């Protein structure tokens, strides 16, 4: 194994992996984090900690990731290129590693115009693919981006995102190949609701042989309401929610709508699990962490395996 994180151990031993997501609080309240940790514990092999997601200020991902480590839940720290130049990125990586973080998701990051400080200056010194290269060189060569040796390496299990539903569709698998060649070990995709289109994407990915070089986790998530379904279907660029999903939510009796959202999520998990090249699921239940345990239970994803971790691996 490259790093010896629990996530890497689960994936490399051939188990169908489960990751979940925890959004840090819009404040310094530790209780919120503790509550969410307990909702996700035992459901997921690792839990993503978002980094100022949708460009809205929240507690920093490294601090929250560290709190997870302390509580015995393995984090996947997300890092975007929007708010940091190459100095800050590398500094934060060293700090996160020293605090026990072992999995990293490398993102370009949502543009600040969508967030709560649209007046801000953006950075984008690097893009996600260049960030992956930086993290891989840290691990494989023990050097900073400028080639200078590090005093004590930072060895991360390197994740990247992929959106099979953004345009141009034909270029998406080739762009995934760029992420793999940059050094990505695992991929977490955008939320999948259009399973046939995702199947076609995965077919192309497998034709390129990428599924043998990288673990691909399909992004899934429960929809809470008709409004949320419609909003995602019409107003979120790069999201593909078919009309039939919106209809299913609409037709469900009002008091059963959240159940229907969970039903759809469970069905999508069962369908993507059958698609060649899919190594796991990434469950994004944004501000609805309560739903994750039920989804995992009903999709037959529990209990989570306890893979043998190498000697000296992180907690």
């Amino acid at each position, binding site marked *: 194994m490259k790093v010896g994180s629990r996530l890497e151990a689960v994936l490399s031993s051939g188990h169908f992996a489960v990751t979940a997501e925890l959004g840090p609080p819009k404040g310094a309240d530790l209780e919120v984090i503790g509550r969410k940790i307990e909702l996700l514990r035992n459901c997921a092999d690792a839990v993503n900690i978002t980094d100022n997601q949708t460009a809205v200020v929240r507690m920093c991902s490294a601090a929250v990731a560290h709190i997870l480590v302390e509580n015995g839940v393995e984090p996947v720290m997300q890092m975007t290129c929007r708010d940091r130049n190459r100095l800050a990125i590398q500094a934060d990586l060293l700090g996160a590693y020293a605090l026990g973080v072992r999995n990293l998701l490398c993102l370009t990051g949502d*543009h600040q115009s969508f967030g709560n400080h649209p007046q801000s200056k953006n950075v984008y010194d690097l*893009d*996600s*693919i260049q960030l992956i*290269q930086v993290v891989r060189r840290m691990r494989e060569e023990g050097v900073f*981006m400028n080639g200078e040796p590090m005093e004590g390496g930072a060895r991360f299990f390197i994740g990247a*995102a992929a959106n099979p539903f*953004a345009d*141009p569709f034909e270029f998406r698998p080739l762009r995934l190949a760029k992420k793999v060649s940059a050094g990505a070990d695992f991929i977490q995709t955008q939320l999948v609701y259009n399973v046939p289109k995702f199947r076609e994407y995965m077919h192309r990915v497998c034709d390129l042989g990428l599924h043998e070089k990288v673990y691909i986790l399909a992004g899934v998530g429960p929809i809470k309401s008709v409004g949320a379904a419609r909003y995602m279907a019409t107003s979120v*660029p790069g999201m593909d929610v078919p009309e039939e999903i919106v209809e299913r939510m609409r037709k469900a009796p009002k008091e059963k709508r959240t159940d229907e959202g969970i039903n759809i999520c469970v069905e999508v998990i069962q369908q993507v699990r059958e698609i060649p090249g899919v190594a796991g699921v990434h469950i994004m239940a944004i501000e609805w962490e309560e739903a994750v345990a039920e989804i995992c239970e009903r999709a037959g994803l529990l209990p989570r395996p306890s893979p043998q971790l190498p000697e000296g691996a992180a907690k």
Partner: protein
Amino acid sequence: MIRAQQKPLVEIESLIGQAKNVLVLGCGTCTAVCLAGGEKEARTLAAALRVSAQIKGVQREVRHSLVQRQCEPEFVREVEEEALWADVIVSLACGIGCQVMNERYPERLTVPGVNTCFLGAPIEHGVFDERCQACGDCILHLTGGICPIARCAKSMLNGPCGGSQHGKCEVNPSNPCAWQLIYERLLSLNKLELISAILPAKDWRSARDGGQRRIVREDVRL
């Protein structure tokens, strides 16, 4: 060319303050071409300032004039008499022209009458689009002649990001996604290999991040 937009009249008046003699100085090059600060715009603005002063009962004389290239000291020398007559000069040139006037006539304050916006091209009559950020290290040969630094909201070198949909940029859907354009152009040229390789992180020293830039041409120095 440099593209600019005239400031609102109310803002320009506030910049003039209590000045009695005002010179509106157009520029015959970039801001003339983008219809923000040529002879016609200088004349119109001067007339508007005169009418406004009259309505408000302010004692003020407003003249207008034009310099062919306000960004060059040689050219702004031509308006010395009018410049020294004025208490305040309203420059309708880009930010370069306004600064050259302040440098050439330090005893007079020249204020900006336009907002200098970007380096761009007209895409239809009256519509101008940004094309270049003058980063100092051109890579258009790698990206099908389409600049991702100026035209991608994230200046990505390995795009498109997940927000590209129906050929549009999620940050402003009236703009095309630069990386969709790059992909299509390279596909049509049969040169997709140019973006199949990872474009490395950029050296921003040649851009404004390296501090104020200067070009020295030893071969033509006097």
